């Protein structure tokens, strides 16, 4: 059954569209949706997927968005070309998202009034409930297999190769014969129904080869693996969405990759702490004692950790913190994404503090930044934040494969050893011996008579002796500033790309905004608007960031928070004239879209061009 509700020309595209699944949390749709996305990937066409889910275990609306893009635009585009609407609760809102000329797939087991359908789209009914009721007697099966049945129908509508999908199903149920057979059967039920009753629509998936050697993984698993490779010895954590799977994945990886083959014992300690006060306390204790340690958390956890972060900054203890950001403040939108902890982390804790932040753009960089953070923490003897977010952390992203150089050695920083002490090297815990602001430290247990010191959060002199003398305090905090200058040269450097033509305007962005920005640039260039771009990879900002801003008349700063937090940080740290930095913001909790950025920038650029012309 196929009926068009208007004369508007249906969208016709190949390998460039958005499919959105509107389902109910806990209904078992997630694995069917992933099967759908993975099958497109197997056909050699890049996909970007986003779960948009509630803070709930069962019953509330949930969505899964698949961006199919042969060109490789893997951010959210905005709008929907095909809505698979299976949730009556969200029906009205879902209809509004369908682009003019778009498509709707729905369950027509019960007839719906014509007024349910918006004008200008093609609505395709498949009697999912009836098909499943006829095929299965068990209530749970009837519900679960509905998901596979719609994948079957979709595969025909989008002209996908059935063999590819069946192969992916086979992989998923490799060791579960019975499940494999029943899933293939359900897939066939949907596919057969469509073949007999429907025709392929204007959205087509055509076999291509643009995926390359890229891998599909979420950022939290990638970060966890980065910590395994980077040599994390201690992990202490407390569950909080969306960071939970970092520690859980770390645990899973370690149970395979960190086992002593002779004894079966673990080369790692993972402690599920009683709260975030304790998890950061454990990381600080381990760091002080010479172990590479990390914790993973989200905004509320950062707030609880603040006192310890100040201690680690001032007592100069290495610590790595992954902040998988979510919508704040307070419990805010715990299952939605934002980049709204930038200032809370950059200046975390009381007193004068500044911290190193890393901004991964995708899982590949989550892996790299996790390993780099462990090195930086020990090199700089300070807390390092890996600023991921829910979009990167919990969604699977197509990203470049992980790389590791077997010759790479961990940077353990400036550690004075027993041999150095025996050779007569003078140990002054808080003395700047090399002019980079970084002092030497000793591990507890190093030497029977030399190198011991009392670490503390109270003011001290260069020999770690309690001192409230003004000059001792000032020496110390000035040295910490110098150390922060040194950090500029050690952190990952910004990625700068020039526009196809000389540009007077630039754009600065970071983290999960990256994929949508790539698409934005192309759309803007098609409109004749050219922008140089700079992707921040870390704070403190290196000199090239200032140079970039100085070079342009105007710089857009694109972020996923209400207050333009990176813009504030740029103004504050680089002393930039605020009028030069124009915020483009998106913070409704869903990942930023190329359309939102394009609208934000284009409206202001054209206004400016018009003013200039006029």
């Amino acid at each position, binding site marked *: 059954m196929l009926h068009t509700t208007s004369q508007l020309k249906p969208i016709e595209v190949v390998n460039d569209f958005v499919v959105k699944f509107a389902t109910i949390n806990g209904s078992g749709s997630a694995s069917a949706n992933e099967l759908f996305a993975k099958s497109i990937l197997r056909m050699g066409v890049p996909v970007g997927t986003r779960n948009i889910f509630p803070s709930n275990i069962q019953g509330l609306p949930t969505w899964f968005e698949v961006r199919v893009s042969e060109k490789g635009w893997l951010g959210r585009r905005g709008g929907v070309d095909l809505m698979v609407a299976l949730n009556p609760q969200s029906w009205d809102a879902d209809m509004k998202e369908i682009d003019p000329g778009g498509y709707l797939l729905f369950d027509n087991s019960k007839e719906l009034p014509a007024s349910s359908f918006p004008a200008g789209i093609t609505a395709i009914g498949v009697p999912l409930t009836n098909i499943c009721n006829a095929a299965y007697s068990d209530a749970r099966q009837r519900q679960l297999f509905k998901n596979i049945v719609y994948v079957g129908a979709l595969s025909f509508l989008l002209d996908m190769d059935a063999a590819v999908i069946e192969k992916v199903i086979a992989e998923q149920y490799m060791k579960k014969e019975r499940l494999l057979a029943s899933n293939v059967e359900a897939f066939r039920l949907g596919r057969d129904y469509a073949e007999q009753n429907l025709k392929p629509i204007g959205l087509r998936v055509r076999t291509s080869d643009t995926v390359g050697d890229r891998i599909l993984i979420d950022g939290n698993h990638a970060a966890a693996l980065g910590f395994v490779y980077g040599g994390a010895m201690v992990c202490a954590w407390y569950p909080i969405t969306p960071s939970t799977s970092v520690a859980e994945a770390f645990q899973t990886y370690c149970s395979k990759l960190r086992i002593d083959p002779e004894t079966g014992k673990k080369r790692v*300690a993972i402690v599920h702490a009683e709260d975030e006060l304790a998890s950061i306390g454990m*990381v600080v204790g381990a760091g002080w004692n010479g172990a590479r340690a990390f914790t993973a958390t989200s905004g509320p956890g950062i707030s609880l950790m603040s006192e310890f972060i100040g201690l680690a900054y001032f007592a100069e203890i290495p610590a790595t913190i992954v902040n998988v950001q979510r919508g704040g403040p307070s419990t805010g939108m715990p299952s939605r994404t934002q980049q709204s902890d930038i200032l809370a982390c950059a200046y975390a804790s009381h007193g004068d503090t500044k911290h190193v932040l890393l901004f991964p753009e995708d899982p590949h960089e989550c892996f790299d930044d996790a390993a780099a953070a462990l090195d930086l923490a020990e090199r700089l003897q300070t807390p390092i934040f890996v600023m991921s977010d829910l979009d990167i952390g919990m969604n699977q992203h197509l990203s470049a494969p992980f790389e590791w150089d077997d010759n790479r050695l961990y940077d353990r920083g400036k550690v004075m050893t027993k041999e150095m002490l025996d050779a007569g090297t003078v140990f002054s815990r808080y003395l700047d011996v090399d002019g980079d602001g970084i002092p030497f430290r000793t591990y507890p247990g190093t030497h029977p008579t030399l190198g011991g010191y009392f670490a503390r959060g109270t003011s001290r002199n260069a020999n770690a002796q309690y001192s409230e003398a003004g000059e001792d305090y000032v020496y110390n905090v000035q040295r910490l500033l110098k150390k922060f200058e040194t950090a500029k040269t050690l952190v990952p450097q910004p990625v700068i790309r020039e526009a196809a033509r000389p540009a007077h305007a630039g754009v600065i962005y970071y983290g999960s905004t990256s994929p949508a920005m790539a698409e934005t640039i192309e759309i803007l260039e098609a409109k004749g608007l050219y922008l140089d771009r700079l992707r921040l990879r870390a704070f403190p900002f290196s000199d090239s960031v200032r140079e970039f801003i100085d070079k342009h008349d105007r710089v857009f700063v694109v972020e996923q928070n209400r207050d333009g937090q990176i813009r504030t940080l740029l103004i504050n740290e680089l002393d930039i004239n605020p009028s030069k930095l124009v915020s483009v913001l998106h913070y409704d909790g869903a990942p930023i879209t190329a359309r939102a950025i394009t609208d934000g920038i284009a409206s202001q650029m054209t206004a400016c061009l018009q003013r200039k012309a006029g």
Partner: protein
Amino acid sequence: MTYLAKPKFHHPSLPKNEVGFTRRDYEGKVSTLCAGCGHDSISAAVIQACWEMNIEPHKVAKLSGIGCSSKTPDYFLGNSHGFNTVHGRMPSVLTGANAANKDLLYFGFSGDGDSASIGLGQFAHAMRRGVNMVYMLENNGVYGLTKGQFSATADKGSRSKRGAVNADTPVDTVSLALLMGATFVARSFSGDKRQLVPLIKAAMAHKGAAFIDIISPCVTFNNHVGSTKSYDYMREHNEVANCLDFVPSRDEITVDYEEGESAKVTLHDGSVLELSKNRGEHAFRDKTAAMNYIQEHQVKGVIVTGLLYIQPEATDLHEHLNTVDVPLNRLTEKELCPGAAVLKEINASLR
């Protein structure tokens, strides 16, 4: 004046222990606590216990929270690494440090505000995990460092120096430690070195979470009539449950108590605790009996001191986590990093 260096003068005739250190080697900086503060007596007991136990100072890590009590680690074991952390959070830092290197001896020093007020949660959870440590709570019933407010261990009805009466029920740290799974639980009095020193030694020999609550009068803010943590009150209400002798494994057992009066407990390293005034054959190993014993005396207003409970074959955090024998902080790329070839396989599985 901010820092007092103690003169490093070693009398040549000072006796050395088996590892070649004199008692002076276990001292630290000059204490800045009030003269007569109970905490200073505890520091002296720690120095004596470590010297007698032949502990190499650098094999000790001493951690503390914030408070007068938490300052004390600066006043002993000057060659050991120490960490004065944040208020109430020493247990988590100690847990992390212990996770990093199982080979050191961990001392945790805390106050009653530190452990029973702000840090009650961390106190309880460190016991639950069986962190291998000696946790000493220098209990004076007040916040010394912030000038005399009641802490959560202040007894109901006790009077502050300014005359306020405490209406809240006290946290009984030994009962709580027992309940939370500490495997060595004792209470002592800073004024009773004969009891305290062997208790500290036994706690050092114990593997697992060892807890000693030490009543330690604050002479400045809680030593008046009406206080239940004053020297006088303690002397009147202390019932010494037992005195113990600690016999290291390599020494011959020579202490002898009268028949029926003593009990012996052998620790995992072979050392022996010989306890006088035994309250019954298995009382020390029976958690319920220990709990009853503490509660019965508490009702009568008697503070029992001595070893209250011990589980000699206890396990610790590292056994629970099944970590390798070598301290984790000594592992290198070789043991930690799975290498590029494995990563290639992982990449392949993600396509």
